[in-house]
């Protein structure tokens, strides 16, 4: 069964447009199943999900970073006007940088330990044959200053180990911005950082959307991070998007029992004084089930859930909000956080 297209008639062509995209490792290990996802210009879209939900595979598929055993299929997979499904390795390599750039979870392993940062950032500009070394250097210094690195000129000779994690993550963002990408993909960009630095990096990413006009696809399992910067959120479970909507829709009126369970587990939302935190019993199943993947852990499952696959339906009162669940229309009125 094919879910309906989410997208209202586009004002601007989306930067990323995925329709019914699946990724499997080898022939028998599906990781992402029938995903529909769009990212419009200057939009920040978040993906939430537990480990094993396929969110990283999804991000890597956009950049062509999947291992050779991975197979991609789908009806449409366009990145900044280029067809990812038809692109060969060379074409994908050409897209990396100008079309989409990525920030990884651990900035310490994102750089080579034995080359200076200036050297590594200069290497990124290899395509710009016309520019002199001094011109490239000026661009790099400007990019480092843009992301808030003190003494950017002095940092060119520094090695990664000489910078803190937060500073290095800033350099990674500067490296991505040097490519002037249409889409910035951030895979858990603040998980390895302290809270004080996390707040600063999130603030930086938000301001870059304003200043550089970049679209951002951010992957996180931290609900606070998602709430802080996203316009729209997709919830992934066992390789499928089970709920998607504006950040207000997802946080104010989560409809899928899995999303509701995630919110219930979030320690920041559990009232202070409650000592025993709730958990979701069981584990994320392997993707590829025919029926609802969450049924085994679901507290409100019905007989229907064990008979047919849940439909992708419009839900709730928010303008953009879809959910893949049989009972979603009935399960509203779940308090999402405080103040609702």
């Amino acid at each position: 069964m094919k879910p309906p297209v989410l997208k209202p008639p586009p004002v601007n062509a989306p930067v990323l447009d995925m329709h019914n995209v699946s990724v499997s490792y080898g022939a028998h290990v599906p990781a992402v199943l029938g995903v529909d996802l769009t990212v419009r210009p200057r939009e920040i879209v978040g993906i939430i999900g537990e480990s094993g939900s396929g969110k990283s595979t999804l991000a890597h598929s956009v950049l062509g970073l999947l291992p050779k055993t991975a197979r991609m299929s789908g009806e449409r997979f366009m990145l900044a006007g280029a067809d990812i499904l038809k692109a060969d390795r060379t074409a994908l390599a050409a897209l990396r940088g100008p079309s989409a750039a990525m920030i990884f979870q651990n900035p310490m392993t994102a750089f080579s330990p034995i080359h200076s940062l200036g050297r590594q950032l200069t290497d990124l500009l290899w395509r710009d044959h016309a520019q002199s070394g001094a011109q490239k250097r000026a661009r790099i210094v400007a990019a480092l200053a843009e992301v808030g690195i003190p003494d950017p000129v002095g940092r060119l000779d520094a090695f990664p180990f000489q910078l803190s994690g937060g500073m290095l993550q800033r350099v990674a963002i500067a490296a991505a911005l040097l490519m002037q990408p249409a889409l910035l993909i951030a895979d858990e960009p603040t998980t390895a950082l302290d809270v004080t630095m996390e707040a600063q990096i999130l603030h930086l990413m938000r301001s870059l959307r304003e200043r550089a006009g970049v679209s951002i696809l951010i992957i996180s399992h931290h609900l606070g991070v998602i709430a802080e910067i996203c316009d729209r959120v997709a919830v992934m479970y066992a390789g499928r998007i089970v709920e998607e909507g504006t950040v207000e829709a997802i946080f104010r009126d989560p409809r899928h029992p899995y999303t509701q369970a995630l919110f219930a587990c979030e320690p920041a939302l559990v009232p202070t004084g409650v000592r025993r935190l709730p958990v979701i019993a069981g584990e994320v199943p392997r993707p590829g089930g025919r029926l609802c993947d969450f049924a085994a852990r679901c507290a409100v499952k019905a007989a229907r859930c064990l008979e047919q696959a849940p439909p992708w339906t419009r839900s709730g009162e928010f303008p953009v909000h879809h959910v893949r669940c049989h009972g979603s229309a009935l399960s509203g009125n779940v308090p999402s956080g405080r103040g609702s």
Partner: protein
Amino acid sequence: MRKQPALIEADGLSVAVPGRGLPFLRGAPLSILAEVSLAVRPGEIVCLIGESGSGKTTFGRALLGLVRPSSGSIAVDGVALPDFSARSFRALRRQAALLFQDPVSSFNPRQRIGAMMAEPRHIAGVGSTRLADIVALAGQVGLAERFLARFPHALSGGQARRAAVARALSVTPRLIVADEPTAGLDVSVQGGVLNLFLDIREQHDTAFLLITHNLSVVRHIADRIVILYLGRVVESGRAGDVLRSPRHPYTRALLDSEPVPDPARRRAEPPVIGEVPSIARRPTGCEFHTRCPRAQPRCRSEAPVLLDEPGERQVACHFPLPEAVNIPAPGRRMAQS
């Protein structure tokens, strides 16, 4: 003063490493921990909080002798260790267990989980290493028998964490020092690990020293909180008091930095800018003044002393924040000053 004697008490514990450079030309020793005093009472859950570089992991290791303290003293049940020799710490470690930050790397990759759990009993010569008893041990942390025959790489993050807890529990320690016990775990699983700590405390009256930077977790589990900045205690007190009404601007900044899962409460500006200064170049005066929104000229020149306040509270600040009058709702941040 205290109702109960401390199970373990560190008094003015310092750790220093030699300065950089060649012998004879070395710089001054770098002090990683500077006179940290901290006591954990039986059955108490104390959370040690700080950013990376604050010395929180070093403190946990120094307390159990994995890093040699350069000065200070450690007392168990009110009896001070005679010295910091390996022998003294070995006696201490019979009563205490350490949970490492990354459980899988703390396991032997070629040893099965069951054997790994039995090993402390074998070494200490206490408790039974019979299969039935190891199965019971695994059951305490919610691991099924089938996991005992597995190798560490075949466990998920939450299972590995439970196996590490089981190993720690095998010799029924009175104190468990846990370094970032929920780092890298999904929210759906981290509650399980923390609930397990509460169960263990209930059953064995085990005390915990949790070393973490995850404040949203601390809020639910801590009895007492100690905040470290550049290897010094800047604030400590009962968890409810510190979280409700932080007195040190650094504590306030940490609390405000935690992103709230509510899109309606986004922050216009990050609550604190900059990063932890290097211990090689400690700021003069109050070490937080370089990032403090309330810093005054006095803070630059004069280091504040950690002063005792009523209600088991300690603060090291010249201009501490006033006690909050209104009690904010759970997780709510107050208007930023």
